[in-house]
Each structure stands twice: as C-alpha cells, then as structure tokens.
C-alpha cells in the first residue's frame, strides 16, 4: 500500500507520521500516535465512539476519515479537551450529571456535545436529542447524557460570561 507522510496538529501538538493511503484517522490516532482515548466501536460510522473534533468544533467520525486527507488539519481528542488536569466544561458536566457509565461511548459523546453547543449554545431537549443521534450509548438510556449536555451549556455560558 502506498504510504505518505502527513502532519497533524493533535490537541495543539504538531505530529508527523507515515500513513498508508487506506489508513483511517482512527487507526492513525490509536496505533501510530498511541492516542487510545478515541475508541473503536464499530468501524463503520454507526456508533460514534470514534468521534473527534476537526478544527476545534466540528465532530467527525474518525473511523470513516482517511488519515491522508487530514494532512495539515487540527484534530482534538477527548484527552486534549482537558488542560493541565482541569476538565473542559463539557467533561465536567458529564461528571456532575452522572452521564458516564461504562465510559466507552463517553469520549465520542463529549466530542459530539462540543459540536452541538458550538452550533447551538442554548439547545432545547429536542435539539440535544437530535444532535446526539449517531452516537450510541447502551448504558444510560440517554437520560443522564441529555442532562449532561444541558449542564454543559450552562457551564459554557458561565465560562463565556467570566471571560
């Protein structure tokens, strides 16, 4: 398989790696770069566990994204949202609202939430539920995930007000 060198900025850090033309972003993050915080749930774009952020706010499915196409782009993973041990408001909201059980869907849910709130800072219940479609959770029945997203909206608003 043809290989090429790409440069990704992952969580603010510029990284250069050789990738095969058929390698997905998920595979490159997990295998080449050792960033296992992004999860493989299905490999076919159906569960959302592999969601990462493109250019800070756009959730994409890393299992359906070819790594080579991401050359020069900025990627954020769940681990990169937290800074110096301080959780991002969205992450803090999932902690506060018990929106986490087995945790396998959580990184993807967090990424998706950042995306929802970037588009809709003050979403209705319906907008939250609609926005979360594509990310599957089998533990929570979504109840505490929806309240986590609501709480995240509040925390983000508080943060903007403080800035």
């Amino acid at each position: 398989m043809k290989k090429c060198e790409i440069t990704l900025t992952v969580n603010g850090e510029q990284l250069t790696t050789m990738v095969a033309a058929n390698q997905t972003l998920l595979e490159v993050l997990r295998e080449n770069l050792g960033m296992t915080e992004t999860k493989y749930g299905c490999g076919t774009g159906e569960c959302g566990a592999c969601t990462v952020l493109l250019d800070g706010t756009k959730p994409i499915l890393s299992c359906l994204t070819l790594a080579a196409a991401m050359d020069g782009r900025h990627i954020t993973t769940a681990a990169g949202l937290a800074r110096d041990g301080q959780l991002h408001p969205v992450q803090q909201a999932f902690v506060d609202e018990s929106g986490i059980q087995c945790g396998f869907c959580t990184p993807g849910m967090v990424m998706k939430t950042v995306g929802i709130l970037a588009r809709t800072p003050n979403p209705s219940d319906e907008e939250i539920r609609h926005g979360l479609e594509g990310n599957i959770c089998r533990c929570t029945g979504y109840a505490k995930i929806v309240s986590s997203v609501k709480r995240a909206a509040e925390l983000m608003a508080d943060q903007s007000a403080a800035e």
Partner: protein
Amino acid sequence: MTAYSTIGKSIPKIDVKEKVTGRALYAADLKMPGMLYGKIVRCLDHAHARVLKLDLSVAAKMPGVVKVLGPDDIKAHSYNTGVLDLMVPEPVGKMLGDIEDQTVFTKHVKHQGDAICGIIAHSEEAAERAAEKVIVEYEPLPVYLTAEESMQPDAVQFTSLKPGNRAFQLPGEMFPNNAYGWGNVDEAMAAADFVVEDTFYVPKQKQCQMEPHAYIALFDDGGRLQCWTSTQMPKCVHIKLARMFDLPMSRVTVTQTVIGGGFGARLGMIGEPLACAMAMAVPGRPVKVLYTREEDWIASESRHPGKYWMKIGFSKDGAPVAVDALFRSYKGGYYTQGSGVAFTTGSWLGGMYKWGSCRYHGETYYTNHAPCGAYRGYGNPQTNFVMEQLVERACSKLGVDPVEWRKKWHKGVGDDGWCPGVTYPSCALDECLDRGAAAIGWTEKRAKYANQTGVKRRGVGVSVMNHTSGAFPMLLEHTTCTARLNEDATAEIMLACSDMGQGAHTALQQIAAEALGFRFEDIHIKAGDSDSNGFDIGAHASRTIYVGGAAVKSACEDARKELFARAAQYLECTVEQLTMRDKIIYLEGASNRSISAQEICARGVYNFVDAASGQRTGIPGQIQGYSSFLPTSNSPPFAACFAEVEIDTETGELTLIELVNAHDVGKAIHPASVEGNLEGGAQQGMGFALTEEIYYDKNGLCLNNSFTDYKMLGPSDMPKLTTILVENPDPLGPFGAKSAGEAGIVAPIGAVANAVFHALGIQIIEAPITAEKILEAIKKNGGV
C-alpha cells in the same frame, strides 16, 4: 432513618475522570513490547457445515505471518463458555446435564461465525491478509433455525451427548415430569372459571455493549499464562483457563481491564480460550485478539429466543388458581448457559403472583444461530412479555383495574420468592404501583383513552416484576474480601467484584468507608487482578452490591474490630466504651483520652523494640480484615412500570410517549448510579418490546449484524423517562440495599406491550412489536 456519612450520596464516581478524558484503558487500548496480533478465521458463508478440507499453506507463507493454527494444532480441553458448572455441586451438574461442547477451532460449523482456524502475525493487517488466503472446503448441512426443526428424528446431531438435539430440559430426577412448581395444576385449571392462554414468541436480542470483545494473552517465559480481558467474571475465567490448558491456577493470571459494558455478554468466557490458545503457540510473545463489531455480533452470545406457551386459570373473584407454562428456546450452536435460562425463566414466573398452583417446563434445543447465553434479566424479560400480557387479558375479562389486580395478587413479604422455600424479606411493590400510577396519571388516562376513535390511538399499560439479589440458594454465592489498613489509616479493599460501568466499585467504596468509619477518599478498591484478589463468583444475577457489598462490609467490620481492640488496650478500657469521630477513637465521657486510628495503624507497622526497656513500642502487626462471605439470604427487588404509547393505526407506527419506572431498591447506596442502571435498563426493555431482534435468512446467515440494521432506541426515540426509587431498606441487605443491576430491563417490556393492548384492544404476541406486526394485527382484527 440512619444517618450515614457516604451511603445514599451520589458522589462523583471513582472512574469518571479517566473515562471522560478517554484515558481509561480498555483491553484494545493496551500494547505490549513484542506484541503479535491474532486473527480468528470464521465461517461466514454457512450456518451449518462440516469442514472437508482446511489448507493453511498459502496463508502461512504470507508476509508478516508468524504461525497458523488449525483445530489439530490446539492442545486444550473442550470447554463451556458458561459458568453454571462452577455454580452447582458436581452431582447436580451431572443431573442438569451441563456439558463442554466447545473447542477453540471446529470442524463442524454450528453457526455462522464459528471459528475455523487462527493466524498469528506481526500486524493486524498482515493477519487479516493471510486470513483471506486460508482455503476451506465445506460440506453444507441442513440448517435448523427453530427447535421444531432440529428436534426432528432425522436431524443432524449437534453433539452425541444430547440426543435429539435437546440441549436441556428440566431433569426428571430432580423434577417429576420435567416440570417444577406446586399444587395440582390440572385439577385447578379444570376447576377455573376461565382461562387465558397463548403461545408467544420472544426475540433474540443482542446485548450491544459498546466495547467489542478484545484480549491480550501471553504464555510467559516463566510458564505462566496471562490474559487481559474485560470479562465480568475474572475468577471463573481464571479456573476455566487453568482447566482448559492443564495448568495449576497459580500459573494463570487474569487481569481485568476496564469493562465497556457487559449486560451478560461478558458472563463467563468469550474469546479468552482462543486468545490464550494462540498465545500458547508462541511462548514469550503477547498476542492481541480484537473482535470486529461484526464478529462480536455473529460469534458472541445473545438472549434466548423461542416459543413461550402459557395458560393461566382464574376464579371469578380474580384469584389466579393455576399457571402452566412451557418455554422452548432456540439454543444456538453451543450449550453455554443451557440449563440456566431454561430454569430461571420459570423462577420469575413462580415468584411473581400468588398462583394457587404452578407448573413450569423449560427446555432448549440446539439451532444454527449464534449461541445464546446470558443477557440482562436471564429469562425474566421473556416471562414478563408473556405473563404480563396474559394477566392483562384476564383483567380485561374480569373488568378489574390492572393496578388493583396486581396489588391484590402479587407476592410479598413472607411469600416464596424465585426459589420455593426462600421467602421475600421485604417488598415495596404496592408503593411502586401507587407512586408510578400517580406519576403517569393512570386513572385519568385509562378513562380518557377508553373509547377512542380516529387514526391515532393512545394507551397506557402497567407491568410488575420481581428479580433477584444474587443467586442464593440455587447457585454458589461467594465473595472474599480483604480490607488492609495502611499505616496512615487509609485502606485497600481487595476483591474481584467487577464494575461493568454500573458504578459498583464506587458503591463498594462507599460501603467500605461507612463500615470502617473512614472517609470515602481514604479507601481504594483494588480489583481485577486474579493474583491478589480472592474468590468471587463474578458479576451476574445482580449480586455485586448485595453479596459483594456484604463481603466488603464484613471484611471492614473485621478490620475495625481489631482497630478498636487495640484502641481499648492503649486507652485501658473496653471496646464498648469507645467511639470514633473523624478517625479519632475516644473513650466516651473522657474527651482527653483518645488515640487516632492513624497512630494505631502506624504503630502496628513501624513497630520497634525500645533499646532501654526492651519492650515493643506499641501493638505490632498491620491490621487486615478478611471475609470469605457466603450469604444466607436473598432479598429480591420489585418494580412497577407504566408506559404510554401512541399508535398510528394507518401506518402501524408506534411512538413512545412516557415511561415511569418505580423500583423497590431497598436502599440506594449511590442513587445516581441506581437511576442510571434503571434508565439504561428501560432503553433495553423497550427495545426488546418494540425493535430489537437479530434476523437470519433461511440459510442461517445474519441479516442485521450492525448498528444500522439492528434497531436500538436512539436519543430521539426515547420517551419522557421518570425513574422513581422507592426506598424501603431491606432487613438483610448491606445497609438495606437490594439489587438494581439487571432489573430495569424487565418491567418496561410488559408495560409497553400492555399499553399497545390498551390503545388498540389487540395483543401482539410476537416480540418485537414492530409497525408491520401492528398493521397485520389490525388487519386480522378487521380494524380497530
């Protein structure tokens, strides 16, 4: 109410920070020096076939391949991925007929996805490419997708040990006429004023835990077999691997990684035998085996589907004078939990209502589906779908309110529970029914929806359930726990109980803090290491808090007893005179006489001989509490669920409007976790009732092995969900707790089905109740 320091508080769970950053390590996240990759070659094109020829020569020469393994290369005993063989005494196991009918690789394919051979290579990709070069020739065999087909006399036999392909029926030696229950059902049924009866179908539902199965195994240079796995039963896997590979348990280590959901999918073994067999072939090299989602689907276990016949006789006053039932399930290709589900399905039936007489037959036949094993509820969902619909039909005939009927006839304190002879110690089901009915507006809505016309019809339904808190007395119940006090008066609590995401370790930490009288943050739970953890049967039967929690409580009380005994010696008093606040032990009534727990612990560890006096500087020895806990009780939880649905009678489309789930949990140790379990259970229960089933074509090939084609309720499909925790502390559970793990799935099933009945006046007896089935039923009924 007792005032607790941590019990009953929804403090942040101990693992949430690492989970919310994604840094929690699941098995697939691990990488080891020198690691190889194992790929299992599965039969994808047949559900029943014999392997005529297996040619691995081309695959073996592919770049990056280290070793190829066929069935004849494996030196291991056959096995059973289930664990019932460990849970009953050997003579009972023999009577039940539990068998070991699985091998690492097979020459007789019994379901699509059966494992044929394995490739070990330097990379996942190299292993996959080599797998494509394996040449297999098959002789297709007739495919049996129902018990009725596989039981035919001329059917191909799945194993010589189970003639007629009947994997299990209740054994006649234990149960006359292969049934259990009580009273004379035939006489009572004949004398009944009326009966309700039907044959239902219950679906093959998939657990769909989000983390696909993944393993690393290593046969190290010291001759020890190590396995990293997200099993929910590490100690059962420990002994099963040891037996399988003829190793003493001291030469097998099972390390449990973070579990990405289980719901029964990780009950017993799954891919551990395959990963370990590959590792044994390449000593010194760790081998990683990752299941794709598709593999997880077609090769791992699911719920038992099948036909479920039930007949209930009533007297005019509504008394349920007799119940008679037969659950005949489709086992799939291997035995696994054959005796378990066929058995317990009837337990939940017998334990629910005050049946005048009861007779239950449970049996299961091999079929060419992926094997059925454990799935949340373990037979209870099936019973709920059937029993609660028939009860509803009877209430309709009697003209009585379904809530009132249930209040009158459900079993309660002092009645026999799921095992005859073992009575319920507590029951708050009436309160669940009252509070649930009030929350959904039962009386008003039942009246309002009684005489609807128009295209869209609404209905409200109710269902109740009982479950279990551990498997006592039917199956082995045992958890050991060590509570070791550090020299700074913090504690390590060591036990093998699993946290599958339900928050069990947090709740166990709360129990430890409470029992020791220490702060929550003083406690560390050390689990998931078969070398340092003692025996625990594993996470099943909703036992972790009821039994595991009791083991933690007992070990911590043991440690606290020693702490107080030493304090009494230091303070020259009796232990009865002592109290502890903020980890300082005081002599009551003499505030100037005290000693800190920290000083007692430190002086036990850093214990010197004083040079001048020749005396020890304090009481020597590190304090360690221990419990090898075997419960003598079972305190089942109860629940009442209410559902409201709206049905479009032209399209059959069903919309879930609201679900109220009221649970008798005893005492919620960590309320947010209990709610979370029940809410997740509700999603799965509504899925069972409405959307979830694995479908196969006539050749036994799976038609929906993906999240797109297997429909689970998504965030927008979920109704308004209200969870009510009814707290009525149980007299026997640790701090009053009963179980809440599995229970959430059960009652929503009957509630949704009964809401459909209320909306349409028609019962749909085949789950899942899809739009197609609704339309067909309306048509058959000549409209609504």
